């Protein structure tokens, strides 16, 4: 329990008039325990998440993820992406992108597009390698913060994939290809600029280009996979 001193019952003749009601009489010992709450919080504290309805828990996480999506679309200094990192958003984006890249020319030989596992591995392994690279170069960002930023910045490219599939439903001529090319280029630039805006500041200025180039390569590869997607 918390330590509480018993309230002053009788006051000494006041030498310090204003302090009469805070002075502790000498004949009543002050005792108690002071413990630092470790592990499970005590039941009467009201931010325990065990007692709230499941809907509240889920909505809170969904709102956090949604807030980060907005921050990626309009990149500016955001503590939400950096300090309160989470990996739900990147997971959702990666899975949806990998699923949308399926259903390509299903030759089932070596000539097809990337399989689900290949997309998944490229995105996560690529993000881990870029994070390790920036930490080895002396960056100050933490491992999961960097993973979080790189994963969330895949959002514009996922939108591009969605738009490409819609365009491909309408037609697959040269005009459609040019449209897809422009969309993918624009989203690639958006992704790269968004993630650079978040990650470049954590590097010493003499190595900033060394840390930014792998990010460029990463989004270039993902854009290439999106652009070359051809349905059966």
């Amino acid at each position: 329990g918390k330590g509480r001193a018993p309230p002053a019952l009788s006051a000494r003749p006041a030498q310090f008039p204003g302090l009469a009601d805070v002075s502790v009489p000498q004949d009543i010992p002050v005792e108690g325990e002071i413990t630092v709450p470790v592990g499970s919080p005590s039941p009467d504290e009201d931010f325990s998440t065990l007692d709230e309805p499941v809907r509240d828990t889920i909505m809170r996480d969904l709102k956090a993820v949604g807030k980060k999506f907005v921050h990626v679309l309009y990149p500016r200094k955001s503590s939400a992406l950096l300090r309160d990192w989470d990996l739900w958003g990147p997971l959702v984006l990666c899975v949806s992108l990998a699923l949308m890249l399926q259903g390509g020319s299903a030759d089932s030989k070596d000539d097809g597009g990337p399989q689900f596992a290949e997309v998944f591995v490229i995105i996560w392994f690529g993000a881990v390698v870029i994070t390790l690279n920036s930490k080895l170069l002396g960056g100050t960002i933490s491992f999961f913060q960097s993973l979080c930023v790189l994963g969330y910045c895949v959002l514009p490219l996922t939108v591009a994939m969605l738009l490409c599939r819609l365009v491909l439903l309408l037609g697959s001529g040269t005009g459609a290809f040019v449209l897809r090319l422009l969309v993918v280029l624009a989203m690639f630039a958006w992704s790269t600029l968004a993630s650079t805006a978040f990650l470049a500041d954590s590097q010493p200025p003499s190595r900033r280009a060394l840390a930014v180039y792998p990010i460029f390569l990463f989004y270039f590869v993902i854009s290439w996979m999106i652009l070359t997607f051809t349905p059966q």
Partner: protein
Amino acid sequence: MAAADDLKFQEFDDAANLLAANPDATTISIDEPSEIPKNQHSRRQEPGREEDDELLGTDDSDKTELLAGQKKSAPFWTFEYYQTFFDVDTYQVLDRIKGSVFPVPGKNFVRLYIRSNPDLYGPFWICATLVFTIAVSGNLSNFFIHLGKPTYHYVPQFRKVSIAATTIYAYAWLVPLALWGFLMWRNSKVMNIVSYSFLEIVCVYGYSLFIYIPTAILWIIPQKVVRWVLMVFSLCLSGSVLVMTFWPAVRDDNRRIAFATVGTILLLHALLSVGCLAYFFDAPEQDFLAPIIPAPIIPAHNGTTVITKSH
């Protein structure tokens, strides 16, 4: 109030003695061009430059010995150990790339650019870029070659990325390993002046592959002559970097072994580029779809076919 002693004028020891007393103190060394020969002088007397720094007490460079020893003193299971391999700035990486693309005859790439500081950033990311450049360029060039044909259906050929990655990373890491082992073995038999550490060899190989990135992009042009000219040109450039690096390391050896070593290095390099060109880029001006008729078939008047043979 400060003690009276603190205000008295004191003599401070020589910098070298101070450093000897406290080897872990951080120091700043200003590199001058005259320092470099001193480094080489100390290198000759120090066979290995790994974590156990042997202070040989050479006459002019005990400070550089201490600093060289401090650089890689973290144990290999800590993160700081690997950070020492990424201790390069942007301009240094760009300088090393420039040195590999424009080799100066007679100047050793390792001695000129890397001697102080081999890095793993360059080799790793140049290989990664090369993998994706070859895969993407190969795909694009195949697309342009087969563009007009009515039966052609574009395929992304994504499996080739994994093959490219395996090949290039194996070349850039296993060949240096083999070469390093071979050089160490020869060093035990013949005393060589010049010896390279494993990381320096990896560095040279990594940076020498840089010229293939623009070459792969230009290989999209579907002309056989252009492709072969480009290949020979880039092979000469990167081969010369390798030769100028490794010739001083083997020239004191038996003549035939020296030539065989350098020849093998060049042969493997040529195999890599020829293999990449052949596998990832379809041959231009070759018609896959029209069948070749071996001989004219003349239908005889009684319904049987006779194939004429030409003498």
